[in-house]
C-alpha cells in the first residue's frame, strides 16, 4: 500500500504542473444521448452516471476536467491519439482496447441484453446497435443483420419507429430502454447475454502516454467507492447497485 501511495503521490507531483502551473484542464470524453450513463437533462446540463462519476474522480484528484461529448465509435481512437486525457465511458476491457489505450481498474461489471419480439432468438432479427460498441462488433463478427447507429437514444428511436426489429445493448442502457414508454407497445422480450465478448469488467480508458493519470484514476476509483460517492451516484441513475 505504501509503494502504491508513493507512486500516486509521485504521479500527483508529475501531474501538478500540468493542472496548476499551466492551468491545464483535463479533457474528458463522454457520451451523450446514452441514458442513464451519459446524457443531457431537461435543463441542458450534461449528466448521467458516468458524467457524475467523472466529476467525483476529478474532485478526488483535485484537477479540473472538461467533459467533451463524443460518439462511442470515436472514443478509443480519440483517447489513443491523445485527443482526450481519459474517457468517462463504460468500456468492456477487451484485448483490442487494452492494446490501444490504458484501461483503469474495473469500476463495475456488465452484461448485454437482446431486445426482440417474443420468440425471436438473438441474431434472429434486424438489430440496432451503437457503432463502436462491443455489441456492434459482436453482431458483425457473428454475421447478424444489424443497423449501426451513433447513440443509444437512436437505437431506441429506431426500435420505436420500426426501423429495426431488435436491439443489442449494454446492461445499464438496456434498463433505460426497457423503461422507455415508446417501446412498451412493442411487447419486446429480453434475453440476457453473458458471453465473454459481451460481458465482463467495465473500465475507463486513459491516454496511453499518461500512466501517471492512470494511477491517479485508479486511486480515485477506490476512494469514491469507499467514501460512498459511487453508491450515491449509483442510486441517482441505476435502480440497483452496480458491482
Amino acid at each position, binding site marked *: *500500500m*505504501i509503494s502504491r501511495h508513493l507512486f500516486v503521490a509521485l504521479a500527483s507531483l508529475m501531474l501538478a504542473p500540468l493542472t496548476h502551473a499551466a492551468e491545464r484542464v483535463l479533457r474528458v470524453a463522454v457520451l451523450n444521448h446514452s441514458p442513464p450513463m451519459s446524457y443531457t437533462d431537461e435543463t441542458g446540463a450534461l449528466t448521467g452516471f458516468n458524467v457524475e462519476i467523472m466529476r467525483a474522480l476529478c474532485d478526488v484528484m483535485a484537477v479540473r476536467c472538461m467533459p467533451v461529448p463524443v460518439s462511442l465509435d470515436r472514443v478509443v481512437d480519440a483517447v489513443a491519439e491523445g485527443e482526450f486525457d481519459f474517457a468517462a465511458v463504460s468500456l468492456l476491457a477487451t484485448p483490442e482496447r487494452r492494446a490501444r489505450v490504458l484501461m483503469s481498474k474495473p469500476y463495475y*461489471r456488465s*452484461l448485454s*441484453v437482446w431486445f426482440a419480439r417474443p420468440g425471436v432468438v438473438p441474431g434472429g432479427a434486424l438489430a440496432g446497435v451503437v457503432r463502436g460498441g462491443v455489441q456492434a462488433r459482436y453482431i458483425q463478427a457473428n454475421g447478424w443483420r444489424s443497423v449501426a447507429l451513433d447513440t443509444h437514444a437512436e437505437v431506441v428511436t429506431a426500435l420505436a419507429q420500426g426501423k429495426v426489429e431488435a436491439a443489442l445493448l449494454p*446492461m445499464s442502457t*438496456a*434498463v433505460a430502454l*426497457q*423503461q422507455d*414508454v415508446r417501446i*412498451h407497445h412493442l*411487447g419486446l422480450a*429480453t434475453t*440476457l447475454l*453473458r458471453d465473454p465478448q459481451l*460481458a*465482463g469488467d467495465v473500465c475507463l480508458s486513459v491516454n496511453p502516454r499518461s500512466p501517471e493519470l492512470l494511477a491517479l484514476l485508479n486511486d480515485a476509483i*477506490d476512494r469514491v*467507492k*469507499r467514501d460512498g460517492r459511487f*453508491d450515491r451516484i449509483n442510486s441517482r441513475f441505476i*435502480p*440497483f*447497485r*452496480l*458491482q
Partner: protein
Amino acid sequence: MIQDERLPAAPSAEAGGTVGRWPAGTVLAVLGGVFALIAVSLVALLAVDQRLVTEAATRLHDETVPWTLERQRLARNLEELRMGGQRVLTASDPPTRSDALFVVRILAAHPGMGEDPRTAELAAEVEGFLVKSAATEGAPDMKAWDVYSRRLRLLADDLSVEGGQRVSAELDRMSEAVEQTRYKLLLNVLLVGVFLASFLFILRRYLIQPLQRIHAVLVSLDGREPLPLLSSSSMAEIHAVEEAIMRFHATLRENEEVRLKLERLATTDGLTGLPNRRHFLGLASDEMARARRYGRPITVGIADLDHFKQVNDRFGHGVGDQVLQRFASVVLETLRETDRVGRFGGEEFAFIFPETLPDEALQLAGRLRQRLGESPVALPDGTLLAVTASFGLADATGQRLEESLAQADAALYEAKGGGRDRSVLATRAEAEASPQRV
C-alpha cells in the same frame, strides 16, 4: 649503615597476576559492535512488527473495506431483487410488470450475484418463481413469495453482518499485532537498559575504578614508601599506565637512595660513622636553641685522643684508624640516646649533652674514659694498645655554642696540660682561671 637504611622493596609489576589484556579501542569497538548488533536486531524486530501492522492496515484498506462495501452492495441488490419481485407480483399492468421483471432478471444475472453461491442460488430460485408467476394467469402464490421474500431479507442481513464481522476480525488482528509490538517495544527497552547497565558496569569495573586507583596511587606516590599494590588492569592502556607508575616509583626510590647516600656522605665522617664537624655543629645549634627556648641545662665537651700522633707514627695509620673507630664505638655504646657526638677533626671529638648539668657531664665523660680504658685496640702482633682520651667540658646553658666550645676547648687544653686521660670542666666563672679536674 647504607644497608640499614635501604628503602622497603617495591611490589612486582605483575603482583596482580598475569591476565589477558585488551586495548581499550578494541574493547570499545567490540562493545560498540555488540550494541550496534543489538540495536539493529531490535530495529529489525520492530520493523517486522511494524510491517505486520502495516500489512494488516493495508489488507483492511485494500481488501476488507472494499469487500465489505461489495457485500453491502450485494445485500442492497438482494433487497432490490425482493422489491422488484414484489412489483412483479403486484403490478397493475403488463408494462410495469415487464419492467419489474426485467430488473429482476438483470439482478439475477448480474456477475456480482453469482460471486456468492447463496445469492446465486436464491436469486435463481426467485427469478424462476417470478418468471413463472408473471407467465401464469391468476393470482400469484403470495405465501410462497413471502418465504422467498423472508429468505432474501435474511440473506441480505447476513451479507451486511459478514462485512462487519470481517472488518472486526481484521481490526482484532491489527490490535493483536499492535499489542505484540507494544510488548516487543517494552522488551526492547529492557534489553537496551540491560545493555546500558552492563556497559556502565564494564566501564566502571575496567576503566573508572582502575583510574581511581591510579589517582590514589599518584596522590600518595612517595619514593620513600613502598608502592601500593596496583590491580594489574585488563585494559592494556591502563596496565601500561600502571607499569609506568611502577617504573616511575622505582626511579623515585633510586633517587631517594642516592639522596640519602649523598646526605650521609655530606654529614657523616666516613671512618667513624659519626657526624662530621659541620653536621655536628648543626645538631648542636638545634640542641642549644631548644635548651635556650625552654631554659634547660646543657653541656658541651671536646675530647682528644692522647698521644694519637705517636700511635700513627709508631704503628701506622691503619692502627690509628682502628683507634679512632674504637673510640667512636665506645662513645656510641656509652652515650645516652639524646647525647650528640661528632668528629671535630683529626683525633678531636665534640659532644653536646642536652638536659645535662656540667657535673653530670663530667661523670659521663669519666664513664667514657673508663670504658675506653677497658677497650684496648689489638695490634697485629697480638699486643693490646691502651687508648686514652682527654675531655674538656663546659656549661653551655644560656651561652652561645661557639663560646661554650671555646671554653670546653680551653678545659681540654687544661686536661692535656694536666697529664692527659682526664676530664676538665670549665665552670662559667672560672673558665679561664681554675677549671675543675677529674
